[in-house]
């Protein structure tokens, strides 16, 4: 008798249409966003292969009425080639630009190692091997311009340039300005709409 009731309860529980429909509306836009970002992060990590995963970072930003940049520092401490995988599927508004430097913002003599524009709704990778070559070239040019150093000092500096390493990278996300948006609710109250975006970075290193 009890078994019959349990059976009936399970049937009603499983086929109740309102319960099924409710399952679909349970997610808030915020939760949906988190699930989306999780998928993007997965793809971003996959693009690291065959490099070994080290970490990932999701940077969230808000478009403002002026251009600005957000800096992310990453440690590339091993003397190995690192791959950086970017996933900008979380940017559906104005595309951003990415610039990678050897030093943080406060240094005016920092070297630009990588640059790309129109970053939105796409995925791409880059590696530190190419960046080290750029850094060596920039440092050699800087040394060549120096006239007030001795020959021995020049040779020493050249040797340093040959063995140069990139232990840290400073990634600048340049976010373009966006017109201020407003919304008016049913009661006629006006409020500002903040437009946001997210970019994911995954880092991996050559493990051979």
């Amino acid at each position, binding site marked *: 008798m009890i078994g*019959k*009731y349990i059976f*009936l*309860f399970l049937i*009603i*529980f499983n086929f*109740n249409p*309102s*319960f099924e429909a*409710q399952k679909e509306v*349970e997610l*808030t*836009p*915020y*939760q949906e*966003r*988190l699930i989306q*970002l*999780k998928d993007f*992060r997965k793809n971003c*990590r996959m693009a690291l292969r065959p490099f*070994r*995963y*080290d*970490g*990932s*970072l*999701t*940077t*969230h930003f808000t478009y403002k009425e002026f251009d600005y940049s*957000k*800096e*992310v*520092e*990453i*440690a590339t*401490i*091993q*003397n190995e080639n690192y791959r950086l995988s970017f996933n900008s599927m979380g940017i559906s*508004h104005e595309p951003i630009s990415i610039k990678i430097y*050897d*030093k943080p913002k406060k240094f005016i003599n920092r070297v630009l190692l990588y640059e790309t524009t129109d970053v939105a709704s796409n995925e791409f990778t880059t590696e530190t091997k190419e960046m080290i070559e750029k*850094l060596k070239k920039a440092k050699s040019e800087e040394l060549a311009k120096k006239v007030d150093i001795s020959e021995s000092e020049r040779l020493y500096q050249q040797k*340093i340039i040959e*063995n*140069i*390493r*990139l*232990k*840290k990278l400073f990634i600048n996300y340049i976010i373009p300005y966006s017109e201020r*948006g407003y919304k008016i609710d049913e009661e006629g109250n006006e409020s500002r*709409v*903040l*437009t*946001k975006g*997210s970019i994911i*970075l995954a*880092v991996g*290193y050559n*493990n051979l």
Partner: protein
Amino acid sequence: MRKHNLYHTLIFCLIASIVISCGSENQPSSELQESEKTSENKDNHSIEVEIVEKDFEFMPPSPIQIASILKKANMNYEEGLTNKVSNSKQYSTKFKQTINFGVYACDLAYCVTNDKFAEASEYLKVSKEMASKIGLESIFLSDNLVERFEKNVGNQDSVMSILFDIQIMTDDYIQDNELTDLSVIYFTGAWVEGMNIGTHTILGNNDHKISVLLSEQMTIARSLIRGLRAVENQSDDLIDLTDHIEEVVDAYHNLWSVKQEGENIEYLDVELKHEEAISISEMILELREEITM
């Protein structure tokens, strides 16, 4: 009798329907309000959500990478260098639990990279215990990680792959739940432990590779200090630890071998003199004692 049964069945069906519909209506009421608030933005692809934006973002190397650096420096496994599993019972504050979660994560990776699976299994269990104390329990509950680990003991590739799964899930969980402050503290623990294992070896070995390893690790120290100072809840323990790390880092940058490289220190591996390495090692051992005791 049959009629009586039919009444019972009908009454039961009615009650069951009411229970189910009440349950499904009550559950998402707060979420519906939230979606009303944000629905307009969603249509415009402008997501107005409660994601916190940080001014300072730093991605430290993972505990697994720290352990693999130790391995690449040809540092053989030495018993007794890792933090005792039994010490976990004395960590009563969230700060101590978080920082030692990092210490144990590094110890776990150190054991696995050196094929010490029995020890690794103990460190996995204590990591799980620490994780549950600091709100990361769901990471270890998913995918039967502990069971998978135990089934694969002896197979380094499989065990490493489980460690990577843990790392990925930890990273995801931290990002989804905006626990950056927690991650800075836990990574600091892993960093100190990596230095501790490295410096113990320096004290008995003059290999230049290990000296280089120290300089590699010191590269990120300033960023860690910046990250620790940016943690929102500045407890006395945290302030003391940050000051202590800063003391070690300043001492390192004042070493002759480091100073003579000037600006090039950012790009080069510095080989320390043996006595310089020893003086820094002693400071690191003190630092490590402070966090694990």
